[in-house]
């Protein structure tokens, strides 16, 4: 009995392992963010478009908002831009764009030529804010609730579909739970 059952059990275990390990939908670069459920790191940076103005997420306390990383070096951000512009037009939540590892002039040009979906674009000149948020690429999008806690993180470009299925319900729930 054992002679048959043991190899069979091993086989089933392997199938389960491969089903998880080789799942093509699973992005091996996607890592769970340790920030989830924790207070969003507060930053004060300069505005990409105007170095004399500051952008701080401290001012957004009491509001649900998005923070998304981008840069002119980021090809995927260019892919994402039309969807981001569309989302921005819906005026559901403020969108903070965190521009990092970038050149301010290039970033300015990018926003002026391709369109600016951000309520405010913060210029993270030395990448320290990105480190605080555990950002390791772009685009990475965080959803922060009214209490200032990170409640969701999405990596890879946002699409209308992701926005509707992953973000809108969470935003609605965050608003229901109240500020």
């Amino acid at each position, binding site marked *: 009995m054992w002679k048959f059952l043991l190899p069979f059990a091993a086989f089933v275990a392997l199938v389960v392992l491969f089903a998880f390990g080789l799942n093509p939908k699973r992005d091996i670069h996607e*890592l769970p963010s340790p920030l989830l459920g924790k207070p969003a790191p507060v930053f004060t940076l300069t505005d990409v478009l105007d170095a004399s103005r500051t952008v701080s997420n401290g001012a957004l306390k009491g509001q649900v908002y998005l923070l998304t990383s981008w840069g002119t070096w980021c090809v995927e951000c260019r892919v994402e831009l039309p969807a981001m512009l569309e989302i921005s037009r819906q005026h559901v939540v403020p969108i903070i764009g965190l521009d990092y590892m970038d050149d301010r002039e290039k970033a300015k040009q990018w926003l002026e030529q391709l369109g600016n979906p951000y309520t405010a674009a913060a210029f993270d000149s030395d990448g320290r804010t990105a480190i605080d948020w555990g950002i*390791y*690429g772009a685009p990475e999008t965080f959803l922060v609730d009214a209490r200032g806690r990170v409640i969701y993180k999405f990596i890879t470009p946002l699409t209308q579909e992701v926005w509707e299925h992953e973000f809108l319900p969470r935003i609605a729930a965050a608003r229901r739970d109240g500020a």
Partner: protein
Amino acid sequence: MRTHPARHWLMTWALVVAMQGLAAQPESGQSLDANGQLQNPVLQNRFERITKELRCLVCQNESIADSNVQLASDLRRQVREMLVAGSSDEAIFKFMTDRYGEFVRFGPPLEPKTLLIWGAPFIALLLGVAIVYRIVRQRSRMPLDE
């Protein structure tokens, strides 16, 4: 066969130039920062050990000591600054795992949910011992061949 003196000189010169090029390359395993080494050799040792233990999240099988990408360089700067400021190794690792998760460390910590990882070699060993024991016992019960 004799090499022409001028040629000989030329080859030596080419070799010297090539070796200088090599010398300008950073040694393998050393960080590729413009900042150079830390003044204090104890700190430099700790810097090298810590940066080898931290995973570069962009190229996930490289450590931040080996990786050339900007993120790795930013994280090396962070480690360097914390070392100079007197942070302990634990504080530096905690800084990293608070932001990037346990995945940023190559060695998993010993805690309830990683018990299986740490225990697996011992479980395999016990299993092996049990199997060998059974086989030996079965064979010892068999009649001896003539």
